[in-house]
């Protein structure tokens, strides 16, 4: 043995060995395919796309930890430049499927963005976004924010305290989001409107969504948002991680560049964020393959939520250059459940990124309908529709039936437990939201979308 020549004892060497395996991040799990019963897949070489964000983790883990391989799938993952190109590549068949914004399959199907029939049977994660404002704006609004006895600000921070700042603001107040049908757009508008700030409507003649707005909201590439904040092209933005934390780490004029004021967990508790989308045509052509992919993804999601160690290992894998590629310390924050608002104000948020818990992967009709209500609310959908239309549309896009089929197979294999997923025969609607679930305290019942839309004062008529 080499150890003799090195003069190291076998024990210490073993210790080093173990730590290096952890370091390389490939401690192979023995027997992921032990009790897997693979399906008769139509296509075994698959190509999926993703955007460099931490919430693509399920796809990356399914590949790196052998869950895809256990199903007999040989998967190639490629980072895509932006959401438009990603969707484009899925539509034209260059990609078999992709990590998508929850609003993308919906927007594509109802024709708000590029028109195409995209379906999803797998919700990739819950929460994970935040709204960050430039530090000087935060300092202006801070006196208006309610504080506790120790003078610490009380979270969640509502936009009421931002309202006076905007009213006295000279000129445009530019804010950034990711994409017109992204969760970020709806969350930012929801948060603003909850405090009486008008975020602007989309109309037939104004596809930018600026009509009547107190602020100007524009789509921007996530990695560029901190730089835009620095150059004052934006005064705030709503984006996923690591780009809120990046503003905390970055410095401008001796202060942190931006202050995250609210997370989307506080705007809507356990809201759906990304989904795994494929075209309807693809799903019909390769049904067994689709099931096999879902099985692997569900197991990967379960692995991600299984322990703290797994999250740490996931961060190591995600920080590789061809995946998310950001530094481990930046990814670590959100992935291991902490969030820094202001320096020194590190808050533990175990539910900041949820991949599996709370039946996160189930594609709830009520989630889909919520996005439709917001599209109607902001004028992306210009026509009022009956409640039945909302349900029919949701049924076209969200496919819990396929998810449940995959889950049933996994339960049979004993790879997941029965209580991990909703019961067979579940109608696909979350119960009406509780008092504190939305930041404005509104009750959302997916079965009555029109009542919900009608309850808002700021909405497109």
């Amino acid at each position: 043995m080499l150890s003799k020549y090195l003069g190291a004892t076998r024990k210490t060497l073993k210790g080093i060995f173990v730590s290096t395996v952890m370091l390389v991040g490939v401690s192979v799990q023995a027997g992921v395919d032990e009790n897997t019963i693979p399906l008769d897949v139509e296509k075994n070489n698959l190509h999926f796309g993703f955007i460099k964000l931490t919430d693509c983790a399920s796809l990356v883990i399914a590949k790196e930890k052998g869950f895809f391989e256990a199903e007999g799938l040989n998967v190639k993952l490629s980072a895509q430049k932006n959401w438009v190109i990603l969707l484009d590549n899925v539509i034209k068949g260059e990609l078999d499927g992709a990590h998508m914004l929850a609003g993308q399959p919906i927007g594509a199907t109802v024709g708000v963005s590029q028109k195409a029939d995209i379906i999803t049977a797998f919700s990739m994660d819950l929460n994970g976004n935040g709204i960050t404002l430039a530090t000087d704006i935060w300092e202006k609004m801070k006196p208006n924010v309610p504080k506790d006895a120790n003078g610490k600000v009380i979270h969640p921070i509502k936009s009421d305290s931002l309202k006076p700042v905007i009213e006295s603001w000279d000129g445009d107040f530019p804010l950034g989001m990711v994409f017109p049908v992204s969760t970020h757009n709806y969350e930012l508008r929801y948060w603003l409107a909850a405090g009486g700030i008008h975020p602007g409507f989309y109309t037939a003649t104004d596809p930018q969504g600026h009509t009547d707005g107190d602020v100007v909201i524009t789509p921007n590439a996530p990695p560029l948002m901190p730089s835009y904040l620095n150059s004052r092209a934006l005064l705030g933005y709503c984006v996923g991680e690591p780009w809120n934390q990046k503003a905390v780490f970055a410095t401008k004029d001796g202060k942190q560049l931006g202050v995250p004021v609210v997370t989307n967990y506080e705007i809507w508790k356990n809201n759906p964020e990304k989904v795994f989308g494929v075209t309807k045509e693809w799903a019909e052509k390769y049904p067994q393959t689709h099931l096999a992919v879902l099985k692997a993804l569900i197991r990967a999601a379960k692995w991600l939520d299984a322990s703290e160690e797994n999250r740490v290992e996931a961060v190591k894998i995600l920080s590789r250059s061809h995946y998310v590629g950001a530094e481990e310390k930046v990814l670590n924050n959100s992935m291991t459940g902490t969030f820094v608002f202001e320096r020194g104000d590190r808050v533990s948020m175990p539910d900041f990124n949820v991949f599996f818990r709370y039946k996160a992967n189930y594609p709830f009709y009520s989630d889909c309908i919520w996005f439709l209500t917001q599209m109607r609310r902001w004028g992306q959908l210009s026509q009022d529709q009956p409640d039945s239309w909302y349900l029919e549309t949701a049924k076209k896009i969200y496919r819990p039936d396929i998810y449940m089929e995959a889950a049933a197979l996994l339960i049979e294999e004993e790879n997941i437990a029965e209580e991990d997923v909703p019961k067979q025969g579940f109608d696909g609607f979350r119960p009406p939201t509780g008092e504190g679930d939305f930041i404005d305290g509104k009750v959302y019942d997916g079965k009555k979308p029109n009542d919900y839309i009608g309850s808002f004062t700021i909405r497109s008529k």
Partner: protein
Amino acid sequence: MFKQKLINAFELSGLTWFIPIIKLLSGENPKEQGAEILRMLGLPIIALSAFFFTWGYLSTKIQTSVGKLPSPVFVWNQSKAMIANYRVELYKKAQYEKFEAIRSSIAMQMDKNVNSPEIQSLLKDIDGVKTKFSDESEKLNEQIAIGKEAHEASVSAVKEKYNKPEFYVTSDDGQPLKDMDGNPQLNREAVDEINLASEQKYMVYEMGIVQVLNDFSSSYGSLASRVSKVQKYQNEIDELTATGGDEKKLAKAEKRKQTFLKLIRKETAYSGNGSIIDYIKLSIITVLFGFAIAATVAIPLGIICGLSTSFMTAINPLIQVFRPVSPLAWVLITIQIVDGIFVGDLALEGDVFKNTFLHAGITVALCSMWATLSNTALGVSSIDTDYMNVAKVLKLNWFDRLFKIIIPAAIPFIFTGLRITLGVGWMVLIVSEMMATSRGLGWYIDQQYQNNKVESLANIIVCIFIIGLVGACLDRIMYTLQRFVSFNDEVSA
């Protein structure tokens, strides 16, 4: 004479600084040649060292949005890491081919008899391979551990150096600030230095190989377990048929067996992460493709323009309008047109020849063809009237006049145009790859940009040098061709 031939070749390609070396080696007037070498090599070396020195100095001063500007040393290490990744990719490909060979021979044997001794011996081979892998990775891990220790020692040395009160940040009223973890907040210089030290790559090749070994070890593991599953179900089937057992159970076992058999039979495509060498190759192929399109369109068009002033007058406005259009504008419309034509089953699915290949290639052609077009037109229209008079005297027909007089006379001009076209095309290619493809150098730079850290900034700098070097090589090749076909030496380098 060989020496003279070599000198001529260097003269033709413009690599004139080799000439004194050859002359010196052949013992020709050492003093004079030595001075010549000093001048031809020494001066560029001085300029280069000045460049690197300035860069090294600036890297200590310039702040980027991701940290300090990487120094030449950091970038050099990063380029070595990129090559190491390439070697890992090669190794992975070789392992993949071995794996596929074993898999397909198992599949072949399985089709004959699932319990044959051949299969048992193949399984034994797999076990052998797995043991070999774990031995190899243990050895590598020992090396990595040593490398890691050295790396960590250097990082903590840097941390030590900067963990001093003079690097702490204080607020306006003199209170020391805390960082995220409650430790004293270091100033930007200290943070950047620590980041640089901890992001320095080490043992890239060894870690990559360990990863490949682990991946394939698990692939072999699943293959073996699939084989044993097939055998298990086969045994069940045999037992059930022997005892005349339940039809349903039999059908189920048969179905399971078939599923696993199919999995073993299925070919898996190679799915690598790609490496810098692959991207360079692909970019060169793409630019040559675009260049070929540009040449096939622009040369004939240029000849017609040169021959007919009316035609030239007619299309001149179009040329003037389209020539200055930026590649960023062309690439978007190209993407949409190409994707409109090659869609669904028509979508191109070759290894190289994909839709994205056309996007980039066509954009290169659209942006770069104008130089060749106008130069060809100029060359054709400015042919010496003497040549044309000779043609008239000889009563050459139109066809002969074109191919024996006009084109040969215009060739130096055409090549001047082509050289500019290739140069412009290479610049355009990087931009259009950034926009349009998911491969190639331009795409790689964009990906690195999105990674948003010092290490990826260093990768981008490496790519800039690569792009420059490849562009210079392409230009040298065109220059040589240009010299080769021109009548006189009046070609600018």
